[in-house]
């Protein structure tokens, strides 16, 4: 009995009334039905949202922060740094290291080391109190224990290469470091250092 009733109900045709322009009351927009208005509003908002998303996507291509890092940095003079010193220069994200290079007749040389670890990118601190195989002062990475000498050479731990170095130009006593020009190397070579004087 119930089955019969249900089937009868589904057989009854449902009457859909489609409101046309003649249904519009008050004459807000002549010729546009309420349904058209709602549809246009929805599509319009979706379109605006899509435009906003596109704008945000395009905005990623515009560099937001143009600062010191990546540009040429004129920060120090030779008088600020002695042989054996390793000086931190935050805006350029580098360590400036000065030492005597035995392979170049014990001349004083400078090298600017990008402080990002070559292993997985932690910021490598200079540890003047620590030593490695008689080398006083090392770069010792806090994340996986990689050790670099003052010339950037990796000597222990998982780091696969020496620290990248930045191009240095000497103008009289002024040191200019190009923090955008970083060179990757597989081994320290005295040629990579800049001789003073």
């Amino acid at each position, binding site marked *: 009995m119930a089955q019969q009733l249900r089937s009868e109900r589904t057989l009854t045709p449902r009457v859909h009334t489609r409101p046309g322009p003649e249904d519009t009351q008050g004459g807000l927009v002549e010729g546009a039905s309420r349904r058209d208005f709602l549809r246009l509003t929805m599509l319009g908002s979706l379109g605006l949202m899509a435009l906003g998303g596109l704008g945000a996507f395009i905005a990623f291509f515009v560099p937001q922060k143009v600062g010191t890092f990546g540009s040429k940095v004129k920060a120090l003079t030779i008088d600020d740094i002695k042989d054996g010193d390793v000086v931190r220069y935050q805006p350029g*994200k580098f360590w400036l290291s000065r030492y005597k290079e035995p392979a170049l007749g014990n001349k004083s040389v400078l090298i600017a080391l990008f402080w990002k670890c070559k292993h997985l990118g932690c910021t490598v601190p200079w*540890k003047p109190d620590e030593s490695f195989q008689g080398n006083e002062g090392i770069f010792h990475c806090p994340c996986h*224990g990689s050790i670099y000498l003052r010339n950037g050479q990796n000597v*222990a731990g998982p780091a696969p290469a020496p620290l990248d170095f930045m191009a240095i130009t000497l103008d009289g006593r002024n040191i200019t470091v190009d923090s955008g020009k970083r060179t990757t190397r597989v081994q320290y070579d005295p040629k990579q250092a800049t001789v003073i004087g």
Partner: protein
Amino acid sequence: MATETRPVGGVPLKERNVAEQKGAPVLTSSARSRPVSPAAVEADTVQVWPHLVVIEFLAAMIFTIMLVLLGTLVNSPLEGLADADKTPNPSKAPWYFLNLQELLLHMNSALAGVIVPTVALIALAAIPYIDRGSTGLGVWFYNKRGPLVGAFSAVYTTVILCVLIFLDQPTKVVAFKDTFSSWLKGKPDVATEGPLHWLTQLLASWPFGDEPTARGVLVEAIMGWTFPTVVMLTFIVLLVVILKRMFRNPPLNTSEIVIGLFSGFVATYILLTFVGTFMRGPGMQLFPPWDVPPTDYGQIILHMLGLV
């Protein structure tokens, strides 16, 4: 006769008989067996409510209470904002990743971070395809040898790993990379030429162009990749060889070898997590668990405030 042996239910007759012999209840009707009564189905069924839901509710309550107690009693303050210019020392991953971080200290990052975990996961997933025997399926310790094999394997792995971790301390025991590099060095960098200097000279002429490049590539290729791989494989193969020699009568079956290797894996996982969590201090140096210097969060906060 033919209609009698053909299974009517979903389970083929042969498998059904095997299952019946093992004592497992089989709720399929076939032409040969009597139709299953609703009472038999009920006797073999556990209802979700209350049997399962009550257990789940209890588990949820116990966990909630434990979390509230931990949150109340254990102080775990947040650190300051992260500062890309100053990495905390030591800088550690969450504890459940410290096994991987420990592995990263000892070899090239692609090997430790990608290749070894991938191979380990594939090997774990492959166990059911390697150990295909049905003996003792679903039974804990079906013979006396399984636990023995597992225990030996765990002890072996722990001892070997402790020795390896102790040896790979560049500032205190052996600096593998630096030692190997000095073997490759020649004059004028060092007073005496290293025993393998001829190799870098050879490779410098071709294909690397210059001696320092040849030396750098060689050190990483040998000490970052080859040496750790050889060490890992050697001790795994050695474990299987020793197990096979220890348990010869009757010879170890596949299942028991898999038990040995899996126990070694679990021991490695636990030991690396322990060492990474409790035995690594500043610069990721190795310390005894009772002597690890505490991380100086005060210094980090002072640095962030610009006072240091």
